[in-house]
């Protein structure tokens, strides 16, 4: 296994080095906010969730064992936390997908001001469609889709995070992508011909 600087930092933190935790946070904060955002499609909520993840990481220092890459350990905490949050009724009502025509609550996710009004509108509509798609996917498919499609993890890494097998991940990602193809059909005017790697 290649050297894992984050794992070394986590081990240092286990030995009481608080500065190592700060460095871990700085190295992974943006990725965690991004991951949580992909899960809940809400910027403010994503920050709250990402902070929860780092709090849990701080509390879990004693449980860390360097048997897998640190990234896997961190994404496992984050996935479990996001899934637990999604199961909570309170959050479900807050995260209900907006109806067509409603403005997106997540203004940060809109395209930049350099986009044309048509591109902006299309981007917002696509964002809403994806939010609706994620809201109705079964949790395991949602987690697999976010990890593989948005976070760029390999099927093997997703299997480690979700503590399942590679064939199971392949099936989950496939079913979620089929659902995405159906949900995003109106946006698929000109399907690309080139292979897209995750």
């Amino acid at each position, binding site marked *: 296994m290649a050297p894992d600087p984050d794992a070394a930092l986590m081990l240092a933190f286990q030995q009481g080095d608080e500065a190592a935790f700060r460095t871990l946070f700085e190295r992974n904060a943006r990725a965690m906010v991004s991951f949580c955002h992909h899960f809940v499609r809400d910027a403010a909520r994503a920050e709250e969730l*990402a902070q929860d993840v780092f709090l849990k990481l*701080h509390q879990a220092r004693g449980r860390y064992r360097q048997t897998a890459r640190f990234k896997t350990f961190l994404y496992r905490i984050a996935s479990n936390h996001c899934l637990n949050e999604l199961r909570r009724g309170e959050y479900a009502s807050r995260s209900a997908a907006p109806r067509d025509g409603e403005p997106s609550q997540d203004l940060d996710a809109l395209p930049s001001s350099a986009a044309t009004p048509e591109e902006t509108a299309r981007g917002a509509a696509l964002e809403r469609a994806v939010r609706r798609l994620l809201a109705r996917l079964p949790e395991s498919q949602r987690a697999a889709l976010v990890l593989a499609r948005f976070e760029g993890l390999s099927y093997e890494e997703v299997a480690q995070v979700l503590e399942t097998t590679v064939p199971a991940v392949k099936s989950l990602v496939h079913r979620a992508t089929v659902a995405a193809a159906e949900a995003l059909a109106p946006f698929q005017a000109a399907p690309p011909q080139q292979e897209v790697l995750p």
Partner: protein
Amino acid sequence: MRHPTSDLTALVDGALPPERAEAVRRHLAACAGCAAEERRLRGAVALLAALAPAPEPSPFFAARLEARLRAEGTRRAGWLARLVALRWRLAVPAAALAAAALVTTASIRQARGRERAMAEQLELLEDYEAVASLGDVEAAEDVQVIADLDALEREGRP
């Protein structure tokens, strides 16, 4: 080859082993239905990849986490202090309970020892009374002689 529908997403993701990927590509070249499905999936993957990137963490993200960590530390320290205080408060009754249990156990052991000694004596006296009733024992000192004879009998000697 059967329609490799369940392999199409993995093909798009480049996650199939090379031999399997090649076999699926050959099938796509000959099967319009599977080729259309593969294009549809590839299109969905491209749309998801084209979503606006996730927002940057806010400027106060790190400061808020620091505050939450401090609050969590204070809360845990408070719990720990309460736990220690509770342990001291429970220590005296617990020590008294332990001492009482020790005394009770010692008393029970002592009583059992006495009962065992009495039982042994009782058995010996019963033997003495049985022999005395035959008129063969004249003095209490003969009790020891009877005991020795009993021991020899248990060992198989006359």
